């Protein structure tokens, strides 16, 4: 538990808080929506700095297509304000109603529209941070993303998890909202084929707005109780969307369907109406369920006639007894099939039930992905311990397969002591950088670099294996 919770309304107050904390060497843990999946927002002592009072839009600059906000504004709230003027910031984590712009920068969160719009680095022009010394500094390049001047320190702040500074304001790009959107969910005979579909689409000049490849277990989560997910054995679901002018969208949808069919893919229910319904279920779950109608493109259909309710989703219901626990890693695309096999083997080894895999394409017009290998974790100590063992093995696997152990949750407390496997000598340089921004290690001690928090008497996180703590 933190000793004190503060809710500063602006940068000046954050500065004052950090100055006091720095003088007295009190740790400061920054928290926003509280949706962290790696323990990043957990404060075990010291000051919990809640950014959610900093939730104002400071400027919408339509001429230059930028918006300047305080970092505590939730992404959806920002988009609700932008939609009236026909703009949006296409950052779309599933927690967009709760997660803030600051969090998105600090964690480099996933976005379901990543394959067209990318992650936050494609949108962040500059931001204002308060460093561990209490200095207010502007990093980045005002209202442009293009610069070769100085060091691009705003890129350093992206996924810094609040260890270098507290993000207080940010200037982001905005773009006009596309006039319409279409989506579909099909099945492909293998993971390789799924990836090939995306490569082929790019070769033909077809650029989807979102692509998701997911296994059957995961797909069940994105349906309603009582609806069937009709995937053939060994097949994977591939979901995609296009947005823009209708003629372009329709053409792209048709071509994408052909590409998938050419590679042995097919619709989920062989052209039956269920196929469209399954597509809508998947889309609704991932994108629209919390959105107000103003942010949606098409009203959900088919739910009433099936006697289903929009909020009756499998996703939360399946978490009724056990929670979702994921190894959220990134791998080069050629290594995904191998990792998928290992995922099943490792989950079995530790007696954990499969929650399923989801591959999100995250980089514009590219095949760089964020993958969630998820299992169900109950409350028993044994199961929790097993999960951390599973997580550790999967993290090591990610590095072995030439990927990264954390694609979207950050290191937090979960991979904070493991990431030396990935970064090796570079980790020392990272710690040096940390010392420049935060000489007294008051900002989020214990996160990202694990043991550095020890000097503040922070207990080692329960999920760090004992041998790692002593090492």
């Amino acid at each position, binding site marked *: 538990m933190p000793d004190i919770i503060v809710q500063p309304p602006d940068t000046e107050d954050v500065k004052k808080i950090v100055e006091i904390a720095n003088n007295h060497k009190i740790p400061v843990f920054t928290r926003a929506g*509280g*949706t962290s999946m790696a323990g990043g927002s957990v404060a075990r002592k010291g000051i919990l700095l809640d950014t959610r009072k900093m939730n104002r839009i400071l400027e919408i600059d339509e001429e230059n297509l930028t918006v300047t906000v305080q970092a505590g504004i*939730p992404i959806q709230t920002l988009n*609700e304000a932008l939609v009236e003027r026909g703009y949006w910031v296409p950052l779309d984590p599933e927690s967009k*109603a*709760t997660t803030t712009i600051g969090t998105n920068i600090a964690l480099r969160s996933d976005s379901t529209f990543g394959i067209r719009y990318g992650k936050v680095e494609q949108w962040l022009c500059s931001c204002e941070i308060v460093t561990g010394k209490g200095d207010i500094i502007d990093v980045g390049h005002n209202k442009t993303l293009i610069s070769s001047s100085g060091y691009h320190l705003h890129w350093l702040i992206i996924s810094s998890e609040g260890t270098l500074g507290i993000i207080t304001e940010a200037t982001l790009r905005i773009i006009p909202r596309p006039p319409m959107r279409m989506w579909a969910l099909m099945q492909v005979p293998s993971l390789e084929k799924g990836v090939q579909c995306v490569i082929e689409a790019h070769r033909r000049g077809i650029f989807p707005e979102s692509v998701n490849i997911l296994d059957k277990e995961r797909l069940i989560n994105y349906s309603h109780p009582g609806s069937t997910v009709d995937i053939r054995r060994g097949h994977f679901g591939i979901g995609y969307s296009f947005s823009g002018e209708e003629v372009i969208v329709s053409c792209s949808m048709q071509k994408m369907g052909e590409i998938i069919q050419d590679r042995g893919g097919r619709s989920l229910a062989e052209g039956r109406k269920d196929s469209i319904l399954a597509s809508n279920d998947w889309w609704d779950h991932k994108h629209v369920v*919390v959105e107000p109608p103003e942010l949606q493109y098409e009203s959900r259909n088919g739910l009433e006639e099936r006697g289903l309710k929009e909020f*009756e989703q499998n996703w*939360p219901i399946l978490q*009724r007894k056990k929670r979702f626990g994921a190894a959220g890693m990134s791998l080069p695309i050629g290594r995904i099939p191998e990792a998928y096999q290992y995922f099943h083997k490792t989950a079995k080894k530790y007696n954990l039930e499969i929650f399923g895999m989801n591959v999100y394409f995250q980089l514009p017009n590219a095949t760089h992905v964020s993958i969630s290998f998820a299992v169900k974790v109950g409350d028993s100590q044994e199961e929790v311990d097993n999960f951390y063992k599973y997580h550790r093995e999967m993290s090591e696997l990610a590095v072995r397969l030439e990927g990264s152990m954390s694609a979207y949750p950050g290191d937090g407390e979960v991979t904070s002591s493991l990431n030396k496997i990935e970064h090796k000598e570079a980790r020392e340089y990272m710690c040096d950088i940390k010392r420049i921004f935060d000489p007294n290690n008051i900002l989020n001690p214990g996160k990202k670099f694990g043991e550095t928090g020890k000097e503040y008497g922070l207990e080692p996180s329960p999920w760090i294996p004992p041998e790692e703590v002593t090492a």
Partner: protein
Amino acid sequence: MIEAEAVTEDIWAEVDKSVESCSLTHCGFCTFECPMYKEFGFESYTSRGKKLLIKNLRKGRDEDILNLSEFSPNDLEKEFFACTLCGYCDFICAPSSDSQAAVRNTQIFEEIRALLVENGIFPEEDVELCKGIKNHFNPWKGARRTDKKNVAKELIGLGMKDAEKDSVNSILYVGCTTASFAKSTDFPLGNIVKSAAKILSSVDQDVGVLGKEEMCCGGILKRTGFVTAHNPHWSSFEECMTKNLDLFERLEIQEIITACPGCAKTFAEDYKDEMEDLGIKTVHLVEKMVELLDEGTISLGEFPIPMTVTFHDPCHLVRHLARFRQLEGNEYGVEKVVEGPRKVLKAIPNIEFMEVPIYHGFRSHCCGSGAGLNNAFHENALNVGKRRAAELEDCLEKGNHEEKAIVTACPFCNIMLREALRQLGSEKNVYDIAEIVGEALDGAV
């Protein structure tokens, strides 16, 4: 479809399931738009925070017992009673998606309030509500038993029947708030029922009023946790319900029409089983009006002056009553309650209807006066009201007519929005939709 009556079977098992589901999913969708979160800034006032608290309050407890020893009564009082039970958290709650039908967040908080009241934890101010109802059938300060009698007299003059003397199937349940403020100049709520009487009298249906026999529906006591009698000088929800049911049974009433969404929700939802046994149907006036318009029984003409209006959806009407109708499988109810008022307003010539962006219908922000907040935490309630009033005003600014007004369908919202507008220095008026329809009836050919 999950039946709504599954609720009372084993409520604590459902509560635990819902709480567990929240702590596992932990999405926090309920936090940012929660009026209490905006007011206090701490998550312990939101649904996610409260459910986490409940998890600890229920730790190791099987039945309806709370583990109170580790908590300060003052904190619990504030965290659980400073809430309008507006139901935004029910609407937006992904984790309770299926338990939303079995037990909703607002129901959980009502249950916890009842337990806290049993343990002597409640705001002191709430006692006045119980005493008021006991003494003069009305929770409002300064209300008198004769208020309802006087209102009834006036309504009978407008063509309504006396339910005690004339045999009627339907009654117009005036409600405590409307009765208390019937003669008020600051909050002229008498116009609501007068308009209601005008509308109902214009169709060929005998509708009666109860007069001084009209009890309080007890909704406010259910919301504030005073469900069973704890003190002989205090009324309780159960007492109100018994008195009401006895009266309805004696007068052989089959339909209750009310312009107060609080009463409508209470009768429809909290009296559900008993009302079903007696064969009594509850409708809110909005539902009734939409039905009459759809049937063509009444028609609307021009409003006397050109006016820009926006509609404030009362929580009890939309997120509670409409949601309840939805759970009953009555989609038409939802259509009437949510779309109905908009359809009515848009159909009246001379009225320009403006919709508040995003926060309308099921997403509407609360006015702040619900569930005892206005009674025990008036300052906070007023702040919530001011935020909502400002939002409604902003929306009206974009309208074309010089005359601008907020329309709602709830006497509570009416009072709160009027007070909030005054505090904001605005001279805009607040009308009940019945008043607008009443005026438009005159213009009909």
